[in-house]
């Protein structure tokens, strides 16, 4: 299958376009009428679906960019070269969407550029903001050969590829800081966040889980595009990623258990409340099951087994971000007398973001040399 065979107007594309249109209208409504009119956010719930799913989840899902970028451009692991472009492009989409969501989520969207000029170095939000800006720029640079190739600008491509290790190094540095600083954001609310998630190691947990998710997400995409474009999945790459997932999920499991035991104690996880059950679900789906399954050799060497584990890790880690962002504060905010269920506009904007990422990726694959398919 080559790029020309990719059909642009399929029923799926139409559905995605409709979703994007609805979400786009909702986003405009939010810009003109404000957060109060368009969302169900309130004083106790200043952060809802957009932050928990779009930003926390989106940024975590974009971690593949720095993990694979670092492996290929810095560690020179040539084996993973075929997947570096889709991984970085995917990260670019993830960050662009996270940046869009933050813009919509802050009270005065047209002041989104303020942190870049007006530094408030004591604020964790400043760290997050400046990282988003810098890393999105870095990802755009890392992805630029795609466009430059298309425009036949050979010199520019050569230049970018020459400085790629430096850019990749910068990207890895920013990602290490940014992934963890998203966790650090929640350290400012010790009395709101449930002790099941609140821990001084939260930044490290965010980082480790982002790496785990990166491996799974890249593997997932590789298998998925192999199925969609009907070519054989590169099994050695998938097996390498699965071995990496095994190591990282083991480390992540250890860190999570250490936090549980040294923090609130095991009892809190099993007290049967909704919040505790959400914690258990996240632990089982996102960490324990993938780790145990990866221990089995026939699971971590077969495409179907790897695909299943990838799904579990993606679901579990996104669930973790939803838990930290929303569920962890549910009991405190309920005691304050506040409730939160996203409005249809919040849902539609989030869905439009996902649709945009899928469609954008598809268009990129068709017109740019992302997957290095035959022309």
């Amino acid at each position, binding site marked *: 299958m080559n790029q020309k065979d990719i059909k642009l107007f399929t029923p799926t594309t139409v559905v995605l376009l409709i979703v994007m249109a609805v979400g786009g209208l909702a986003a405009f409504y939010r810009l003109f009428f404000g957060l109060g009119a368009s969302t169900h956010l309130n004083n106790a719930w200043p952060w809802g679906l957009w932050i928990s799913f779009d930003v926390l989840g989106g940024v975590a899902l974009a971690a593949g960019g720095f993990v694979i970028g670092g492996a290929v451009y810095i560690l020179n692991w040539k084996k993973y070269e075929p997947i570096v472009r889709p991984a970085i492009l995917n990260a670019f989409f993830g960050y662009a969407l996270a940046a869009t969501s933050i813009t919509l989520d802050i009270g005065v969207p047209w002041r989104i550029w303020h942190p870049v000029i007006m530094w408030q170095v004591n604020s964790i939000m400043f760290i997050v903001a400046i990282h988003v800006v810098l890393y999105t720029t870095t990802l755009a640079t890392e992805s630029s050969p795609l466009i430059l190739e298309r425009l036949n600008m050979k010199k520019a491509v050569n230049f970018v590829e020459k400085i790629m290790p430096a850019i990749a190094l910068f990207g890895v540095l920013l990602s290490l800081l940014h992934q963890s600083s998203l966790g650090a954001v929640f350290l400012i609310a010790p*009395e*709101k966040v449930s002790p099941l998630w609140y821990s001084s190691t939260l930044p490290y947990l965010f980082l480790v889980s982002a790496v785990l998710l990166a491996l799974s997400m890249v593997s997932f995409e590789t298998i998925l595009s192999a199925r969609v474009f009907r070519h054989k999945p590169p099994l050695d790459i998938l097996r390498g990623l699965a071995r990496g997932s095994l190591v990282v999920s083991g480390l992540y499991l250890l860190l999570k258990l250490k936090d549980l035991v040294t923090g609130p104690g095991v009892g809190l996880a099993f007290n049967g409340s909704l919040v505790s059950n959400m914690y258990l679900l996240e632990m089982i789906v996102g960490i324990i099951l993938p780790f145990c399954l990866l221990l089995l050799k026939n699971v971590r060497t077969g495409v179907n087994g790897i695909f299943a584990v990838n799904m*579990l890790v993606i679901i579990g880690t996104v669930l973790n971000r*939803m838990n930290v962002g*929303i569920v962890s504060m549910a009991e405190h905010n309920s005691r304050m007398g506040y409730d939160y269920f996203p409005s249809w506009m919040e849902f539609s904007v989030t869905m439009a973001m996902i649709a945009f990422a899928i469609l954008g990726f598809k268009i990129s694959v068709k017109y740019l040399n992302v997957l290095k398919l035959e022309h």
Partner: protein
Amino acid sequence: MKGFIEDFGAEAGDALDRFARNGVSRRDFLKFCTGVALFLGLPGEMGARIAEAAAAAKRPPVLWLSAQECTGCTETLLRASHPTLEKLILELISLEYHETLLVGSGKQAEEWREKSMKENRGKYILVVDGSIPVKENGIYCKIGGKTALALLEEMGTQAAAVIAIGSCASWGGVPSADPNPTGATPVHEIFKSKGIKVPVVNIPGCPPNPYNFLSTVLYYLTFKKLPELDDQARPKFAYGRIIHDNCERRPHFDAGRFALQFGDDGHRKGYCLYKLGCKGPETHANCPIQLFNDVGSGAWPVGTGHPCFGCTEKGVGFTKPLHSPAVVKDLTPPSLFTEVYPGKEGVSPGVKSLATGVAGVAIGAAGAALISGLGKKGDDKEDKGE
């Protein structure tokens, strides 16, 4: 105790007669002295010794020097009222010189001061209110043609002890505020620079509580030594703790209930004034327990709804902006406070359905992934063949 009072009655009869003529009964007088003893943290029977000292036939001479001051310290002293303190203090001590209270004036007053200093050399207590200007040899404050600086040096060297009353004399006060045009300097710094070894007690405040001054004087008269002082020469019984420690609004601070603007809901309800710039957390004084003017509870700045501005504390009063938050000493409050919504269990319905929905999607997707991924075996072998 009983026997002592009888003896005491015989010895100090003259003084007590004198008090009685001024409307202070022997009983009132002993009660007052016992009260002073308790305020100083001394055992009750010390009251009798204080009474003995206070009623001694030869009253200790006190000279009062005023420099750059507003007479607030003198006024506050006249506000003490149990029992009618202005009478008592005039009888207790022999006030030899005080610009505001002098009967004589001009040359006569200055002559009396010099005579008294000569007679009581090394025995009198010197009280100073107001800061001493030192710029250009102290020309900014003169009394009888002499600068306050020269007078302090002259009177200070011959005194038994010096009590610097008020913030100006203790650490500089208002006159020392930036840019300090007169070079206003507190007493103890001048003593240090001139090498004068006479002990100095600081009673800061703008104005200070009269009882802090009175108790220090009585302690000195009784024990012939100064009360225990802190590193800034302030009596520990009065300045040993920060205002925040004994503030009546402290529970509001601990619970995170703050007035955010003058006249807002929290301000009307008497919430903590920390966020309005109350300097209680960094100011050493006994205002919340001693109060002012003997009119009962609430008679102090915070009690009336105004933040403490730190008048007793060097580097706080007249230095820091009135409404900027204080540096909280001894304990650092969390930037967010523990919740004040006890007793409600569980999760609101909206979040509950959101969480349940998310859980449902996660379980469904995970289940589907497991079944589709691990159930099939066909293409596995195909791939392994690669």
